[in-house]
């Protein structure tokens, strides 16, 4: 009996060991001087961009034979990234959006790369406004990969159908939110389609709404001397901003019928000529790559102006490094960034590699603008390479983006400092309410939203 019991226990232990070893097999090793790094957001084989990345991988192998690049096709979208981060399964290099940085830093999902950023010259070369987005307590947690300011995407074909074209051929962009209603109404009358589309779900409605609300003079929160945060948007201005959304639907009828719309749905409607305007950032590659929109029909204007000014929000994507990465792996990741040309230290080789991406976009008919959506680099060597490459591959008319690129009276607003996603979620629900109930009381909704934000989130901040 004892022998059999021992056999059982041995079997159990063996099973446990096998399971443990299987788990350990997933860990990275650095034997024989080879450093393995996983690179996230790698294009899938069906993506035409995969060839460019394969070329990057080959160049890495040539230049750094002791670094092994392991492609990882996981994307930086919040859901999959949070799940992987919480289980310690993030790739060494991953891409996420600016709105996720604060939570990623707070949750310990990214490594402190201050020393490396300085060593490789990023700290000195990236636009301080952008660098500030990845800096917390004077420590740098990411390398911005793109930067943009929100603008107003306009469907040229629909504007032309509504006769909203100047004598010189440029579009008659709405300059204010009030004008946006008039423009949308004209387009709706001429085409029968929605003049404008506004997101309402997945926190994206709230995200865009903050931009509109700032233009109405709304301040969402403030911190008092004791450090306590107070919700400050139960105001007339916020009621007016929400009323504006409500009027788009019930008074002017210029929105689509569906009230459940996220940014992906907006793109579909816009690309298929079912909506003429929406607030987003250029160049909107997805409109062409996924929905086959003619790139020449995509135009961008500045965000409209509200009673308190013309406010936009800066956003973009950022490269972050998993906290489990060893110093050797972090070093290897920076070498990879250098090889793909996302580096302040431009050489002929890195410039050539950087160009590959634009060449691919050009060949794929994806919009390449003459100007960047927001200046990412400030060092002359780097910006001049940027300009030269862009000029070589620019494939959309300048005038399609001229209004957007004029930042003269545009004020770039910081994203709300704490609980931004929670705020967006609450604003989403308010927007949905005014779009599904013609009798909704905007004042009461704003009051409730401010109370919910205070009680459920700000009061529970540590």
């Amino acid at each position, binding site marked *: 009996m004892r022998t*059999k019991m021992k056999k059982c226990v041995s079997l159990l232990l063996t099973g446990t060991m096998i399971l443990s070893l299987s788990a350990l097999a997933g860990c990275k090793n650095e034997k024989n001087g080879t450093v393995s790094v996983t690179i996230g957001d790698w294009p899938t084989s069906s993506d035409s961009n995969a060839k460019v990345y394969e070329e990057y991988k080959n160049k890495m192998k040539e230049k750094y034979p002791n670094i092994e690049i392991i492609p990882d096709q996981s994307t930086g979208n919040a859901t999959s990234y*949070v799940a992987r981060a919480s289980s310690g399964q993030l790739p060494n290099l991953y891409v996420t959006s600016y709105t996720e940085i604060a939570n990623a830093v707070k*949750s310990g999902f990214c490594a402190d790369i201050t020393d490396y950023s300085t060593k490789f010259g990023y700290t000195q070369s990236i636009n301080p406004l952008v660098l500030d987005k990845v800096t917390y307590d004077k420590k740098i947690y990411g390398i911005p990969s793109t930067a943009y300011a929100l603008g107003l995407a306009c469907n040229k074909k629909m504007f032309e159908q509504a006769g909203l074209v100047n004598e010189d051929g440029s579009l008659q962009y709405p300059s204010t939110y009030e004008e946006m209603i008039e423009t949308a109404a004209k387009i709706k009358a001429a085409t029968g389609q929605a003049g404008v589309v506004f997101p309402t779900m997945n926190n994206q409605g709230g995200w865009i709404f903050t931009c509109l609300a700032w233009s109405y003079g709304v301040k969402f929160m403030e911190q008092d001397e004791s450090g306590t945060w107070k919700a400050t948007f139960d105001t007339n201005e916020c009621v007016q901003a929400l009323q504006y959304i409500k009027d788009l639907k019930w008074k002017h009828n210029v929105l689509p019928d569906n009230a459940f719309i996220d940014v992906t749905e907006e793109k579909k409607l816009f690309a298929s000529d079912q909506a003429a305007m929406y607030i987003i950032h250029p160049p909107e590659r997805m409109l062409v790559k996924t929905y086959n929109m003619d790139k020449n029909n995509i135009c961008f204007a500045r965000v409209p102006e509200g009673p308190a000014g013309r406010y936009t929000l800066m956003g973009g994507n950022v490269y972050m490094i998993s906290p489990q990465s060893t110093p050797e792996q972090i070093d290897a990741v920076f070498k990879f960034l250098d090889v793909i040309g996302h580096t302040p230290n431009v050489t002929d080789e890195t410039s050539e590699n950087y160009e590959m991406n634009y060449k691919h976009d050009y060949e794929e008919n994806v919009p390449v603008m003459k100007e960047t959506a927001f200046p990412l680099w400030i060092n002359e060597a780097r910006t001049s390479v940027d300009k030269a490459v862009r000029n070589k591959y620019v494939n959309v008319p300048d005038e399609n983006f001229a209004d957007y690129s004029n930042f003269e009276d545009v004020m770039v607003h910081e994203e709300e400092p704490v609980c931004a*996603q929670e705020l967006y979620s609450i604003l989403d629900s308010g927007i949905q309410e005014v779009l599904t109930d013609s009798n909704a009381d905007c004042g009461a909704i704003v009051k409730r939203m401010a109370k919910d934000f205070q009680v459920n989130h700000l009061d529970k901040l540590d």
Partner: protein
Amino acid sequence: MISCTDSVQRTFIHKKRKKGVGTIFKQNITGWLMLLPTVIFAYFIIWRPTFVGFYDSLFKMNGSALVSFTGLKNYIDVITDTNFVTVLGNTFKYTFWSLVIGFVPPVFIAMLLNEVRKGKDFFRIGVYLPVVLPGIAVYMLWYYMYLPGTSGLLNTFLGKVGISPYTWLQDQNLAIVWIIISMTWHSMGGTVLMYLATLQGINRELYEAAEIDGAKIRHKIRYIMLPHIYPVALLLLIRQIIGVFQVMEQPLTMTGGGPNGATTSLALLAYKYAFEYYKFDKAMATGVITFLILCVLTGAYLVIEKKLND
């Protein structure tokens, strides 16, 4: 007071039992070993996560790391959320409507299939087919069918009979009902087959005897079919309550929990805590609250069922 005889008797029984367990284990060692993978699997997939969920919910978490013990603070935070009562109410609404809409049709369809003489396989496959479709695809399909305005499929039908377009999922009062209809369509096939298998296991002689006695179809249903499917129906009732109480995929896909939180369930709230706000501690607490409510509901059901049977 325990008598000496009682004590001796108990010791004897205890020893006998102890020996019995050992003997059972010794005699069935192969069986126990075969069971081992399942036990290990259950440990990693069910028991350990359940225990970890309970344990972690008592801590402040930073990402997935435990920071400090906070006792019941996460529970208090979740329960005092101004939307918690609404979300809890929504979850019960899902359960209620799933019983109203989703419990009877499978029984009815199984009875119909049981009576079909020709093309049985065709109808069985037809009923089961939605079950094999991926959930996300099914709910996206229903989402597009429910589109408001004139572009939605259902509104196109309404338009054909002169009825103006309806808002479907945007109707705060009925959005849950429309979601439940799509869930019933998707998952009913499995339940139908279970009822059908039970019905087909009934001895045909009972029907023949009933027919000789002049029984009509309603009598056969009342006195033969229903008593036979009763135990299966009770089991499926618990499964349905447990399953629907954890509804998440459907509102996430079709409404995102809207309009204005009208379709947010407890499971979706936990999802939002974890993946939108990165508050894993509160997500754990919400999961435990759901688990406890289900324990109470299942316990209450078992007590009622026992009383009814007694």
